[in-house]
């Protein structure tokens, strides 16, 4: 049986005049428009970061007791949290008897680092990132930034955390 209408094909083709191939066709102009809109989106993202950096005030670090002086022997560690409970830190006494505290989060992907006294360094077990115990600088591995150092203050026999130095990459 022949199709109704003009005889150019079935009736549904006359009523649905746009083919699926044409529907999916993206012109160069449309592609350019999409790319430019994405570019504007990237710019807005940069503006958002700029606004956040202007609106975010420098954090106020609390004073928090960490340990007493005799509590950490040479080669020993003490774990604490600073400035918030979600920021694990580690206090160590180096071979020279000096006390130092660092954030325990690896600056690569935030795994917990541990202190290896024999090598005087911190090691990250996830991706073998190594940090110097003296100043937290990166010795090897994927981390790009040093471990944030916790500023310590001594009052009598007690040790307090008073701030955080993020350090330079």
């Amino acid at each position: 049986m022949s199709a109704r209408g003009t005889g150019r094909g079935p009736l549904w083709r006359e009523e649905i005049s746009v083919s699926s191939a044409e529907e999916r066709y993206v012109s160069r102009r449309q592609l350019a428009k999409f790319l430019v809109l994405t570019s504007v989106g990237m710019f807005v993202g940069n503006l958002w970061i700029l606004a956040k950096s202007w609106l975010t005030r420098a954090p106020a670090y609390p004073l928090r007791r960490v340990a007493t002086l005799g509590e950490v022997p040479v080669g020993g560690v003490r774990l604490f949290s600073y400035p918030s409970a979600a920021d694990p830190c580690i206090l160590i006494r180096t071979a020279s008897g000096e006390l130092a505290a660092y954030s325990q989060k690896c600056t690569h992907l935030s795994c917990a680092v541990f202190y290896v006294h024999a090598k005087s360094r911190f090691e990250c077990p996830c991706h073998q990132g190594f940090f110097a115990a003296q100043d937290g600088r990166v010795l090897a591995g994927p981390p790009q930034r040093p471990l944030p150092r916790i500023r310590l203050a001594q009052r009598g026999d007690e040790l307090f955390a008073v701030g955080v130095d993020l350090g330079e990459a």
Partner: protein
Amino acid sequence: MEPLPPSPPVQRRGLTVIDGALALIAILLIVQMWLLTATLESFLAGHPEAALPAAIVSGVLAAACGGLYGFVRGVDRAQSSLSE
């Protein structure tokens, strides 16, 4: 002296120009993506001083993309009027 080869048809030249502009837009976009991720990582690491120059450069790149889009539209329109 050998004769010069025949120049390509106007429409094909127009398409080549548009393709070149699109490639340039794509390259600028990749640079912008890298800039955004680097700025974000720097900001989250506590170094917000990179945010202002990054925003300026990103704005310049977005403006360049917009300019190239205007160019593509212009060439596209000229091609359409030629083919009609």
